[in-house]
């Protein structure tokens, strides 16, 4: 739970609204030091979500320094000059705040959910650790061991997780998105305290951060508090943004992976797709395309592959446009018993082509209606607005564009969706993979099912 690595999930279904409505009715402004502030009032309960998003993540790490951004995120809980040791955790706990953080490829965020009477406390602590972090050798060594264990827990005991990580690595190749956010175990253990200090100094600054306040607060109070706590922080020169190499559009890769603990087959296919930063218009076509193709059990691929052809037990698509570099369009599926992964991948190709032929304006309207219907739920839990607005702001989308995504979806036409789908399918770099059970058993002695020994 704590400090989890947050793979920005596909919010596409949530990103849509009725034509006249803004998604959250939020407000946005900048402090003189460059810090961006987004306020989303929600007066249901006297609580507020406070988040600080840094526009830096694992893609900003130097080569060979994989895991720096994430390890630094952990070290941000190990004390500053003013609030040494575990003081931040202790103070927030004393005051009933839930506090955590996460790192992704493109960004890092720190956040607290708190009673409004404790918001200023959270802001004071967050502002303090933006510039006064004190790294001690002992804490560094301990936290490096902890993230090493985290990596083992998340990936090494989880064959499906390892398969998905590999699928991404195969697609992205030399692109920084290929690297796991945690770093590899070897990279983690080779990191130094100096690596952390260098990353901190060149990325943790108000001019690289977005403050989000979502909850029982109005914009005027938010501005007053933002100026009080974050206003005095000084701008810093930032590290140059990393190069995001272009992938070869004709790239198509395929791999299979056998894992000893796996008893059923899974297939995955991912595309390096346009993102908001690559093609801001295309993303709405692809958002509708993903909903049409594979989001939910009334989607086209589900109807064809699961219900009609009975070749899959499940199939789904997801599209993430909120990225600094490429976005990702992905298809995941589970073959029905007796169907091989290879057969299912072929069947997906056929079903996709058929679904594109059937894509009519009426079908697109149906998708839009569904997307619009659930808009009001976005105003329920203040955390949802905070995550959506913050993650999109962190990749450079201004609030007015976040707010009007519904209008953009309303403008989507079947012809546009078809064109974007064609471009994706034929001209986007792509990788497919199959996860299978291992054919032969592991060497004897390493695996002894059922053997138990008592130990006190």
């Amino acid at each position, binding site marked *: 739970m704590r400090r989890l690595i947050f793979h920005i999930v596909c919010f596409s279904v949530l990103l849509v609204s009725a034509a006249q409505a803004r998604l959250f009715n939020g407000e946005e402004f900048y402090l003189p030091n460059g810090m961006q502030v987004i306020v989303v009032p929600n007066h249901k309960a006297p609580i507020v979500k406070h988040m600080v998003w840094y526009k830096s993540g694992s893609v900003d790490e130097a080569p060979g320094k994989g895991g720096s951004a994430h390890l630094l995120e952990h070290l941000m809980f190990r004390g500053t000059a003013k609030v040494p040791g575990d003081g931040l955790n202790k103070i927030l706990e004393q005051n009933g705040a839930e506090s955590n953080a996460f790192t992704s490829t493109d960004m890092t965020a720190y956040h607290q959910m708190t009673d409004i009477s404790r918001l200023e*406390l959270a802001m004071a602590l967050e502002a303090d650790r933006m510039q006064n972090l004190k790294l001690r050798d002992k804490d560094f060594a301990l936290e490096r061991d902890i993230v090493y*264990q985290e990596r083992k827990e998340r990936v090494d*005991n989880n064959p499906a997780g390892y398969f998905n990580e590999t699928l991404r690595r195969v697609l992205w190749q030399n692109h920084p998105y290929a690297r796991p956010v945690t770093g590899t175990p070897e990279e983690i253990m080779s990191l130094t305290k100096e690596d952390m200090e260098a990353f901190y100094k060149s990325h943790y600054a108000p001019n690289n951060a977005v403050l989000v306040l979502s909850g029982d607060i109005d914009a005027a109070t938010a501005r007053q508090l933002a100026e009080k706590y974050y206003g005095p922080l000084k701008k810093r020169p930032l590290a140059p943004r990393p190069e995001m190499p272009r992938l070869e559009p004709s790239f198509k890769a395929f791999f299979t992976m056998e894992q000893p603990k796996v008893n059923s087959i899974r297939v995955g296919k991912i595309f390096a797709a346009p993102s908001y930063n690559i093609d801001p218009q295309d993303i709405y076509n692809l958002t509708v395309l993903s909903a049409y193709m594979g989001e939910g059990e009334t989607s086209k691929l589900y109807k064809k592959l699961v219900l009609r052809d009975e070749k899959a*037990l499940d199939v789904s698509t997801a599209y993430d446009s909120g990225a600094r570099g490429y976005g990702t369009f992905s298809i995941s599926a589970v073959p*029905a018993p007796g169907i091989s992964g290879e057969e299912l991948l072929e069947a997906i190709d056929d079903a996709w082509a058929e679904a594109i032929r059937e894509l009519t304006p009426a079908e697109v309207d149906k998708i839009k209606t569904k997307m619009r219907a659930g808009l009001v739920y976005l105003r329920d839990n203040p955390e949802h607005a905070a995550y959506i607005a913050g993650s999109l702001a962190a990749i450079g989308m201004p609030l007015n564009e976040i707010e009007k995504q519904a209008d953009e979806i309303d403008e989507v036409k079947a012809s546009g969706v078809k064109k974007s789908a064609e471009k994706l399918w034929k001209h986007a770099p792509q990788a497919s993979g199959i996860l299978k059970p291992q054919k032969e058993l592991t060497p004897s002695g390493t695996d002894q099912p059922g053997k138990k*020994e008592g130990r006190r």
Partner: protein
Amino acid sequence: MSHRPLYKKSPHCGIKIFLVMLLGIALALTAYERLTGFHAQEIVDNSILKAKTFAAPVQEVVSGRGIKAYLLEDKTNPIISVSFLFENGGWAHDRADRQGAAKMAAAMLGEGAGKYNSQAWKEALESKAIGISFSAGKDDFSGSLLTTTENAPQAFEMLRLALTAPRFDQADIDRVRALMLEVLRRQKEHPANELGLMFEEELFRGHPYGRNPAGDPAAIRKLGRTDLEEAVQARLAKDNLIVGIAGDIDAAAASKMLDDVFGSLAEKARTAALAAPEPVFNGVTEQVSRRSGQNIVRFAAPGAARSDADFYPLFIANYIVGGSGLSSRLSKAIREDKGLTYGVYSYQTLDDAVPLLQAGFSTTEDNYGEALDLFKQQWELFGSKGVSAAEVEQAKNFLTASYNLRFASIGNIADILTAMQKYRLGQDFLQKRNSYIEAVTVDEVNAAAAKYFNKDRLQGMAIGSFDKVTKEK
């Protein structure tokens, strides 16, 4: 001008100068501290956003047909959430030769009812943004509904249909069955799941709690329409129904909804509470050898039921030992001070037939022996030495100050209203809950620590590689 001495000589001059200097240093330090230190309490005291009393008045609604529910009206957004459960309808109540029936029934209630076949059902829900879902837990069969106020009439009608006229079409049964078998096939991919299955089977030996929650593959292959109808009829009734309602709906509308949706259910369920299992707690941690990236260990010990006088003292004790995240004693000893694990935790479980205190962690093989020793040491130390007044104070502060956070979404509020009725916490629980926490004394926490934290009564099981562990011992 003659030179004037700064200080008049006096017999105590040295001392005075020293005292003045001390005072100066103290003042300077205070000033420095004022400028540079962090004054949490001061920030809270001077905060321009003051704490608000948050009323959350819960009403009890009784429908014309006598169905009771708790309601928390909230008009902030045009959304309604209904949470409901049928007691003793969970998977542990499946017939021994029908293990998986409750889960399959829960899945099938989402596959169409009345005139809506599976696809028409899902299309209707999606186009109106209505969420209806069912699940079979260990003890209860539960469900939830989320709708906009505008679409509430259709949402309530669809929920009524799901509960009273599910279709159970054969093609959907076959599809759901195939998915359940797939879940079983990949159930042991993660060693934590394999450990959980083995641990509970052993702990609850012979009792339904020890069964595989995902069902028995042989039974699942045979389950058909008649079994599902029987499973639903036995479970879904008025005498084991609990409902919580939150959001944009008033008492009159809620009362009508209760009759419309649940009114035609059978009066009495044909399911009963389970006998208590008799787990053995003997301080032994069994080892199961598997090739895995980390060793994982789980523990269980006797716990306190929600209605037990020990519940709140143990609630606070558990928070201090392993429930509070990074600053818990276990986390401090094994994670924060030693870097041996990503996470170590303890928690209370309140299953109907047996309350437990549980704990666990995972770590690589080379760390396992040291982490296990530290864990047992902390557990024992807590039982024998207890807690300080400061620790209890800190725990109470968090538990009371964080209370409002649970009102973030109406879905969560509806669930709380249901739990308040299941555990008989009273209609005024939301107003009184913090006073229950505050009333717990240090002595009570220490008594709970002494009673529940004893390493000789901690039953454990670990999965992973133990070659290095054994060699070191």
